[in-house]
């Protein structure tokens, strides 16, 4: 009892072993700091690890298409083109009116894979494709990595034919993939993580343009290539 009088006049008399003024309750502070720290660390874990894991769903593509195989001219012939860009365009083509056809429809695949009974290779993927899709004349519901919101007007032909850009510059290297990457989609917005960027912090210190496809990435590239006028709002938001 006497120890807890904590009178101000007697600064040296404390229950704390004399290291700090006795009106400071060290054990309380330790408790405060520890619980604060617990909360803090918990929040950091939730924010940096749990949140991204819940926010994003991971879906495999309906068919695990092998780009590398199809672009290997020793295995598959029929993909026309000399440059990598021309090779891409032999399936991901431009229509006559200049619009970009995007992911090819079934009729492109059936140019070669036309008979559900006779697969061209030995993979179970191709078999599933022939049975479930070609056999039923059903389009494959591909999940699109680069789908922008519909407030965005993007012209492929302006970038590919006029800007002479490589496909991989924005889309990364698909040509070498033997498997299609996992499609990771933000459950709340419905957009692929390729748009927002794989780094949950949203910070990129040394990024390539293939890491992210948000508006400031487009703007940054426009500026670098001396096309600042294309950063006016109405160019993309018609």
């Amino acid at each position, binding site marked *: 009892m006497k120890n807890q009088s904590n009178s101000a006049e007697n600064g040296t008399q404390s229950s704390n072993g004399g290291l700090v003024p006795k009106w400071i309750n060290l054990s309380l502070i330790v408790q405060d700091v520890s619980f604060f720290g*617990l909360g803090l660390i918990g929040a950091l874990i939730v*924010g940096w690890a749990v*949140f991204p894991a819940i*926010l994003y769903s991971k879906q495999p593509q309906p068919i695990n298409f092998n780009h590398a195989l199809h672009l290997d001219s020793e295995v598959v012939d029929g993909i026309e083109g000399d440059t990598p860009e021309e090779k891409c365009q032999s399936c991901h083509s431009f229509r006559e*009116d200049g619009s970009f056809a995007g992911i090819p429809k079934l009729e492109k695949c059936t140019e070669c894979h036309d008979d559900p009974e006779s697969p061209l290779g030995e993979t179970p993927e191709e078999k599933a494709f022939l049975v479930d899709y070609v056999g039923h004349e059903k389009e494959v519901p591909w999940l699109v990595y680069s789908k922008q919101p519909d407030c965005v007007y993007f012209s492929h032909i302006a970038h590919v034919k006029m800007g002479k850009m490589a496909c991989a510059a924005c889309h990364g290297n698909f040509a070498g993939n033997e498997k299609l990457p996992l499609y990771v989609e933000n459950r*709340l917005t419905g957009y692929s993580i390729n748009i927002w960027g794989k780094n949950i912090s949203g910070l990129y210190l040394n990024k390539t343009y293939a890491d992210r496809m948000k508006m400031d990435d487009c703007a940054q590239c426009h500026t670098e290539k001396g096309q600042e006028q294309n950063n006016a709002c109405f160019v993309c938001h018609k």
Partner: protein
Amino acid sequence: MKITRRNFIASVVGGVAGIQVTPLPWKLTDDVAIWTQNWPWVPVPSTGAVTEENTVCNLCPGGCGISVRKIDERAVKIEGRTDYPINPGGICPVGMGGLQLLYDDDMRFPGPMKRVGARGEGEFVNITWGEAYDILAGRITTLRKAGKPEAIAAVDGNVAGTTTSLLIERFMQAVGSPNYIKPASIIDTYETGNLLMLGKSNPMAYDLENADYVLSFGAGLLEGWGAPGRVMNAWGMWHDANPAKRKTKVVQIESRASNTASKADFWVAPRPGTDGALALGIVHVLIKKGRIDGRFVNGFTYGFNDLTSTEGQNQPGFKTIVLKKYSPAQVERITGVDAKTIIALADAFSKAKAPVAIYGKGKNNLNGSLYEFMAVQSLNAVAGRINRPGGVLLPSSLPLSPLPDFEPDEVAANGLKKPRIDGAGTPAYPFAQSLINHFADAINKSAKSPVDTLLVFSANPFFTVPDGGGFKNALEKIPFIVSFSPYRDETANMADLILPDHNYLEKMEDNVWPVGLQYPLYGLSRPVVEPINNTQNVGDVVISLSKAVGDETGSAFPWENFEEALQVRAKGLFDAGGGLVRYDSSNPAWKFKAFGNGQKPSYSSFDEMWEAMKSGGMWYRPVKLATSWQGLFETPSGKFEFVSQKLQQVISENSRQTSEKAALDQMGIRVAGVEALMGHYEAPKLGVDRSKYPLFMVPYEMINLSGGWIPTPPFLYKTIFAGQLLKNESFAAMNPATAAKYKLHQGDRAVVKSPLGQLQVRVDLFEGAMPGRVYMPLGFGHTAYDEYQKGKGVNPNNIVKALNDPVSGYPLWWNTPVKLIKV
């Protein structure tokens, strides 16, 4: 350490501080904002390959060329084609909304169906096409075996002369029933009038584009008359922004200030039903002032001057009667139009270089009056406007090959000998081919319906026949009703069996001579999308049905499918030669060129022509005037007949049994002698106590509301004004003076009551409405289709009390005596 309240709060504070330096709150806010942009009801245009498919719109007999834009397989927009002769890039609102008729699931039948539940509830269950054919063919065969094929009746709303219509008529003949009925439209009035005055039922051809003075007797030029795409383009030409180029004056004659009247150069408002008197009043002035085309009248007409009959009696001519009975003062008394105005109209008409008097009633969906039309044609004749640029042209019909003849079998032949239920073609109505209002009447008046099975094609008579609900009642009495409609319309909801047609964008169909066009045009529409539902082209269905009924009927249809039948008829176009299958808007087909417009057909075989027609949708020949009036008319006199000898023959024949008075009475004619044989005005005998029903109800049509069998695309309801439809109540327009008599104000509710029924409306005060009349729009009051149409407003047809038009027998639907009761 214990978890005390303090410790807990400390950890929460730590959590909150920590969460700020994680992406969670920042990214979550951003993502939630994006989430709100993607809610499912926000419309998003689809992406995909863009294609444009050209075809011809078949929603009305106008036949405008349309271009349908598709994204992948989905049609997304309809626009008018610039490379089609009749509508240089233009299209009417109903045509633009056509995609809603294609894709509205609630409004369409998914496939063949049969009724379950009570009649009229619209409860159906899906069946297969095989079952549907079995049920219907079975029923028809049973009737034929019992020797009663005439108990089958068909209502066919397809335009006369189209292949679909011919096949349906042929089916009825092969089966053995004379009861093939078409709802009456203005085309019937034109055909009968032309038959009497010109000797042949030519297509009505008004050379609007070349006229410089258009005197429109009731034709709703901006309400959808004729081919709307064509008329609106002509209107644009007439009202060029550059006043120097504007050479045409338009005078609209109707009792209400419609859009057409409001935008015309002059609006003249005679009492409804008196247009004929006005026309003859103008003729009177022209004759008096000697401003008639003497060469035409004296050389190529019959009945203008007095005649001495074979018995030596003096028979007055058209001129004598007009001079005696249609002076401006007399016409003023009849019509309410100032004598001064009548004289001014006559002056303007005669001074114009290329005037034309056109006749119509609103949109043409309903018939006009025969004598009124004859009076207006007489005006054209007197001024020498027949076969002249800008006037009434007399082109021959399209040179389509007829379908090959066939012999009905014995059962059918016997059935065809029986009298028609509607009395068309009998002495009372000698020129009528169908009388739908009398058909319904006959069924209602019999104890047991003479019709066992009713087939309904492209028509919705429950809603559209102006007979005070007569057809509605008749439907209740008919034991078996089959609808071929793609839409869940009122008549289809009363049916027992549905064999749904394709929507117009899903089928191939022909469009034979758009109404009022002055050059031959055959339109061919083709499917622009794959059929969405399990439907079949009604032409194919008729062919299949005939084969299902039996070999005898099937042999009358020696074609695999409907396209073959179309080709059989189109062969005549190829054989006739001179037809063009592509159009360039810099060379309009109505621009008269003395030596032809230099275009030659671009095909050398029928197959080439047919393929070109399928992709272009047209076969046409530019406008051509006959070189002279000689040989142009096929009347008994070989001339234009002001006084119709054909009509005279018919009346004489009828009089032989009884007396002339009795014959005239039977045909509903209230004048005698020569006046009964020419265009004239006669006051209808209302047969109603006018003190009880002191007002008249006049239905009217609008371009942005469909009053016919085609449903109104829901988009168009957004174009209706609040003074026409408010929530679920439609308005009746009346002059403020009329409303004041009943102490009615704008928006008040009132009941419009005729001897046949009553409807509740809201009052719209409109100074453009003639006093003493109540104007109600046609197209509201549906009880079927989908949520956008059902239960909105009232249908004036339900209270129309129509007298019979003399001679033609069609309903006089524009003068129903009514009274107003304030609610």
